[in-house]
C-alpha cells in the first residue's frame, strides 16, 4: 500500500476502539476522510511506538458493519430487537421528557447512571448525573465493587488520598529509561496479574519486560503458570482467594526477621507496634496451610523483596475480588510501606493525575472539587449503599452494587425507575448473576443505552439507543496518570454518531437545574485543562501530550519529604496522623478493623467442604485475553481469529481423569449456573483450579430474546453471585474463588 500521502494525526488512545484503560500515543493515518491504519507513536514516552493487538485492530472496529450509526428507539417489547431509526432531536426530546417526569414523580435519585470499566467515561457520566441531580453513579452488578476501587481505597486509607502508588517503571518521567533520576526496581513482585494483556489500570504491561531487560528480577504470586511465572526467581502458587494470607505471612517474616526499613518506619509510619502484634497471627507455616505456598518459599520471597531495595509490587484486579478485598489491598500496601519503597525511584511511586487535572474523578474528594462540596454532600445522603458503608460514603462517590440489586428488587428505601447506561455491557460483562440483573432491570420504566454496538445489555434493556463514536472520531483528554494527553479527532463521526462528551453536555443542558456554563465540549475540556496551565490546542500542537514541569506535585520522587502531598504544604502524608498509617485511623473512623487480617472465601474447600465434594474444582474467572477487553471486541475478525472461543483452562491430569480432551466442549457448572466452553487442557493449570475467562458472548448469533447473543450459554458470570461483599462494602466476591465441576458434553461436541 502506498501510504506516504496519508495524513498523520497524533493522538492518545483510551476508550472505544482498543477499549482498554489506555494511554498509548498513536498515529492515525487518514486518506479521503477515512482511517487507513493506526500505528504507535515512537515519540510518545508511554508506549514508545508500540501498540497492543487491540490498538492495531482499531480500523476493523471503526468500520465494522454492525456499528450502530443512528439513534434508535425500541418499537417492540424489550428484547424483541425491533428498532426504529429516529432523529437526535426526537431522541433527546424523549429522554428529556421521560427523565424529567421520573424526577418530578420519584426524585432524581431514582435514576441510576451506569458505566463499565474505567475509561474516559468517568468525566462525562458524572457531569450529566450531577446536572440531573442524582448521586447514583454505578458499575451495575460489579459485586463488591471489585475493580480497582478496593485497592484505591486501601491505599487512600494508608497513605492518604494523594498516596495511590504503582510500580515505578519510569512512566512518570519524560526521558523514561534514560532518565538519571530513575533506577530499575531490583525485584518486581507481580501480584495476581498477567501483564501480557495490555494496559490494565493505566499500566502498560510490557513496561515490566523493559525493566527486566534492564536487570529487574521477578517474584510472582499466581495460581497459574504463565510466561511471567516462568521467568520469576520465585513463584508463589497460592490457592485462589488466599492472597491476604500470603501478604500477612510476608509481613510477618519481614517484621520478625528485622528486615523492614527502620528509618522509614520510625520517621514516616504510624502504628508499627500494632502491626507487629497483628502479624504474629500469621507465621509462614500457618500461611502454608491456608494458601498451599511452602513456608520456605514465602520466607525466601519476603526476604528477597525486603533486602533488595528498591523493589516494587504491581498487582491486578484479583486482589480486589478477594474476600475483604480492601483488607487484602491494605496488607499488600503495607509491604511497600514497611520496606520504605514509597515514592522512591524503582519502588512503589506515588501516582497522581498529571498536572493536577482530573479526567476521571476516582474519589469523593475529586467529585467535590469538580461539582461542589455542598451538592456532592447533599446528594450523598441518598446515594445507594452510602449509608450502609462508611467507606463507600467516605471514599468513593459510587453506589454499592450489591445493595443496588436488592434495592432494584425491593424498591426499598426508594424505587429505582430509570437507568442511563453508557459504555457498559452489564448483562454480558461485569455483572455477577447477570440473570438476576436482567430480571430486575427489565422492569425499570425507562432505559437509555449509549454504545457503539448492540450488546446483550442494549438488546435486553434499551428503550433509546444513542450511537457513540470511537476514539478516532472525537476529542477527549486524559490524565491517568501521566502524561497529560489529548485525543484528537482524526475523522468525522460515522453516520450520526456523537461523542460521549457531546451527548452528555447536550443532555445536561436540557436536564440541569442550574444552567450549564459551557457552550461546547471544547470549552469544557479547556476549562478542565486550565488546572494544568494549558489547553487542547496547545497539547495537540505538542504532539498530544506533556509531562508536568519539575517540582510539580504530580511529578516524583520523595514528595512526602518535600511537603508536596498534603494540602497544608507540610511534609508527610495526607492522613489523620500525617504519617503512613500501618494502623489505619481512616479505617477505624469508618468502623473497620484498622489492621489487616485474613478472611477465607465463602465458597472453598475449607469453608464449604461438603459443597466441594460435589464441585471439586476451584473456579477462578476473569483471566485476561491479550486480544479482548472484558466483553468487548468479540466481533473484530483480526482479534477473534486469535482467541476464537470461550474456554476453560483445565489441568491435563485432571482432564484425563474426566475423559476430557483438548478442544472438547464441556459444561462448567455449580450451584448458581452452568455454561458451555471449550476445554483448554494444559499443565499451566493447577490440578484443582479451573480458569474461565469472562465476558463471552457471540455477536454472530441471534441478539434477540431469549438468546441475547448466547450470553447465557457462555458468560461465566452466570456462575457467580451478588451479596458476598466485605465489611467495608468492597471485595468479597466469587469472581476469583468459587467452586465448579466439569461435565463433558456428549462426544465432546455440541
Amino acid at each position, binding site marked *: *500500500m*502506498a*501510504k*506516504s500521502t496519508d495524513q498523520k494525526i497524533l493522538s492518545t488512545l483510551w476508550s472505544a476502539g482498543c477499549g482498554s484503560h489506555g494511554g498509548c500515543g498513536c498515529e492515525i493515518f487518514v486518506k479521503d476522510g477515512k482511517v487507513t*491504519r*493506526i*500505528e*504507535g507513536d*515512537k515519540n510518545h514516552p508511554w508506549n514508545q*511506538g*508500540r*501498540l*497492543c*493487538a487491540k490498538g*492495531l*485492530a482499531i*480500523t476493523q472496529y471503526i468500520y465494522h458493519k454492525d456499528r450502530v450509526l443512528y439513534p434508535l428507539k425500541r418499537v417492540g417489547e424489550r428484547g424483541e430487537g425491533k428498532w426504529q431509526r429516529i432523529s437526535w432531536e426526537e431522541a433527546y426530546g424523549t429522554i428529556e421528557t421521560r427523565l424529567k417526569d421520573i424526577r418530578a414523580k420519584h426524585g432524581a435519585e431514582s435514576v441510576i447512571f451506569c458505566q463499565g470499566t474505567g475509561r474516559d467515561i468517568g468525566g462525562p457520566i458524572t457531569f450529566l448525573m450531577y446536572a440531573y441531580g442524582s448521586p447514583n453513579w454505578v458499575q451495575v452488578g460489579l459485586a463488591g465493587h471489585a475493580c480497582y476501587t478496593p485497592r484505591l481505597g486501601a491505599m487512600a486509607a494508608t497513605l492518604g488520598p494523594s498516596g495511590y502508588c504503582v510500580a515505578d517503571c519510569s512512566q512518570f518521567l519524560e526521558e523514561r529509561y534514560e532518565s538519571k533520576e530513575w533506577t530499575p526496581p531490583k525485584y518486581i513482585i507481580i501480584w495476581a496479574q498477567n*501483564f*501480557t*494483556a495490555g494496559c490494565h489500570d493505566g499500566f502498560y*504491561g*510490557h513496561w515490566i*519486560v*523493559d525493566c527486566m*531487560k534492564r536487570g529487574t528480577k521477578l517474584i510472582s504470586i499466581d495460581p497459574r*503458570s*504463565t*510466561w511471567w*511465572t*516462568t521467568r520469576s526467581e520465585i*513463584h508463589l502458587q497460592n490457592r485462589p482467594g488466599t492472597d491476604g494470607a500470603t501478604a500477612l505471612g510476608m509481613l510477618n517474616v519481614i517484621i520478625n526477621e528485622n528486615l523492614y526499613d527502620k528509618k522509614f518506619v520510625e520517621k514516616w509510619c504510624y502504628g508499627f507496634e500494632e502491626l507487629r502484634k497483628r502479624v504474629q497471627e500469621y507465621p509462614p507455616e500457618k500461611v502454608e496451610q491456608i494458601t498451599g505456598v511452602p513456608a520456605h518459599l514465602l520466607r525466601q520471597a519476603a526476604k528477597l523483596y525486603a533486602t533488595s531495595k528498591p523493589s516494587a509490587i504491581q498487582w491486578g484486579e484479583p486482589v480486589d475480588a478477594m474476600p475483604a478485598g480492601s483488607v487484602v489491598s491494605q496488607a499488600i500496601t503495607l509491604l511497600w510501606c514497611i520496606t520504605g519503597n514509597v515514592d522512591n525511584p524503582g519502588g512503589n511511586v506515588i501516582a497522581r493525575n498529571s498536572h493536577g487535572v482530573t479526567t476521571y474523578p476516582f474519589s469523593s474528594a475529586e467529585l467535590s472539587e469538580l461539582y461542589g462540596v455542598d451538592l456532592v454532600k447533599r446528594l450523598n445522603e441518598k446515594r445507594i449503599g452510602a449509608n450502609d458503608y462508611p467507606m463507600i460514603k467516605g471514599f468513593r462517590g459510587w453506589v454499592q452494587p450489591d445493595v443496588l440489586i436488592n434495592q432494584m428488587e425491593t424498591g426499598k428505601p426508594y424505587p429505582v425507575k430509570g437507568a442511563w447506561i453508557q459504555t457498559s455491557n452489564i448483562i454480558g460483562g461485569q455483572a455477577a448473576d447477570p440473570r438476576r440483573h436482567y430480571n430486575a432491570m427489565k422492569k425499570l420504566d425507562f432505559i437509555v443505552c449509549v454504545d457503539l454496538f448492540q450488546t446483550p445489555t442494549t438488546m435486553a434493556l434499551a428503550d433509546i439507543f444513542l450511537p457513540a463514536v470511537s476514539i478516532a472520531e472525537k476529542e477527549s483528554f486524559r490524565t491517568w496518570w501521566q502524561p497529560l494527553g489529548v485525543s484528537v479527532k482524526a475523522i468525522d463521526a460515522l453516520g450520526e454518531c456523537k461523542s460521549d462528551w457531546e451527548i452528555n453536555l447536550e443532555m445536561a443542558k436540557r436536564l440541569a437545574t442550574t444552567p450549564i456554563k459551557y457552550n461546547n465540549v471544547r470549552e469544557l475540556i479547556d476549562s478542565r485543562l486550565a488546572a494544568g496551565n494549558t489547553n487542547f490546542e496547545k497539547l495537540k500542537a505538542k504532539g498530544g501530550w506533556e509531562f508536568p514541569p519539575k517540582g510539580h506535585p504530580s511529578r516524583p520522587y520523595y514528595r512526602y519529604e518535600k511537603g508536596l502531598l498534603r494540602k497544608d504544604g507540610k511534609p508527610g502524608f495526607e492522613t489523620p496522623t500525617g504519617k503512613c498509617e500501618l494502623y489505619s485511623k481512616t479505617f477505624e473512623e469508618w468502623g473497620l478493623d484498622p489492621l489487616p487480617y485474613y478472611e477465607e472465601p465463602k465458597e472453598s474447600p475449607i469453608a464449604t467442604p461438603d459443597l466441594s465434594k460435589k464441585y471439586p474444582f476451584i473456579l477462578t474467572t476473569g483471566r485476561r485475553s*491479550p*486480544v479482548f477487553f472484558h466483553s468487548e471486541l468479540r466481533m473484530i*475478525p*483480526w*482479534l477473534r*481469529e*486469535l482467541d476464537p472461543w470461550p474456554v476453560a483452562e483445565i489441568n*491435563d491430569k485432571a482432564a484425563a481423569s474426566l475423559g476430557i480432551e483438548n478442544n472438547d466442549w464441556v459444561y462448567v457448572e455449580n450451584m448458581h449456573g452452568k455454561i458451555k466452553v471449550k476445554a483448554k487442557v*494444559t*499443565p*499451566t493449570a493447577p490440578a484443582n483450579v479451573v480458569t474461565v475467562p469472562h465476558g463471552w458472548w457471540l455477536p454472530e448469533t441471534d441478539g434477540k430474546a431469549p438468546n441475547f447473543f448466547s450470553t447465557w450459554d457462555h458468560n461465566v458470570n452466570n456462575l457467580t453471585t451478588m451479596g458476598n461483599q466485605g465489611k467495608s462494602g468492597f471485595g468479597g466476591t466469587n469472581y476469583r474463588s468459587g467452586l465448579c465441576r466439569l461435565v463433558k458434553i456428549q462426544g465432546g461436541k455440541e
Partner: protein
Amino acid sequence: MARNGLLIQYEWCTGCHACEVACKQEHNYPAGVCGIKVVEVVNAGQDKVFVDFAPFTTRFCDLCADRTKSGEEPTCVKHCQATCITYGTVAALAKEQEKMPRSSLFAPK
C-alpha cells in the same frame, strides 16, 4: 543484493499477538493468513511448568516490502511489545545472534 531477514529473540516473546495483528493491518490479509504466527510452547518440568512463545514467519511475510522500501521498519518490528524483533541483513543479524540466546533467524524471502 544482500538478503534481509528478521531476528527474533523469542526469550522475550510474551505471546501478546501484536505482531500478528500489525502484519494483518499492513497487508490486509484475510482470515487465516498472516506473515507471522505465534504459538505457545509449554514444557512441564518436574517442579515447574515453563511457558514460552515461539513466533515464526510464514510464506506470507514479504518483510514489509512497501515500508522498508521507503526506509520504514517492518510493522511487526515497530509494534512488538517486547521489542524482540530486529530487521536487517541476514549476515548482520547472524552476527548479532552469536551473542543472543534463545533466538531465531528468519529469511522469508
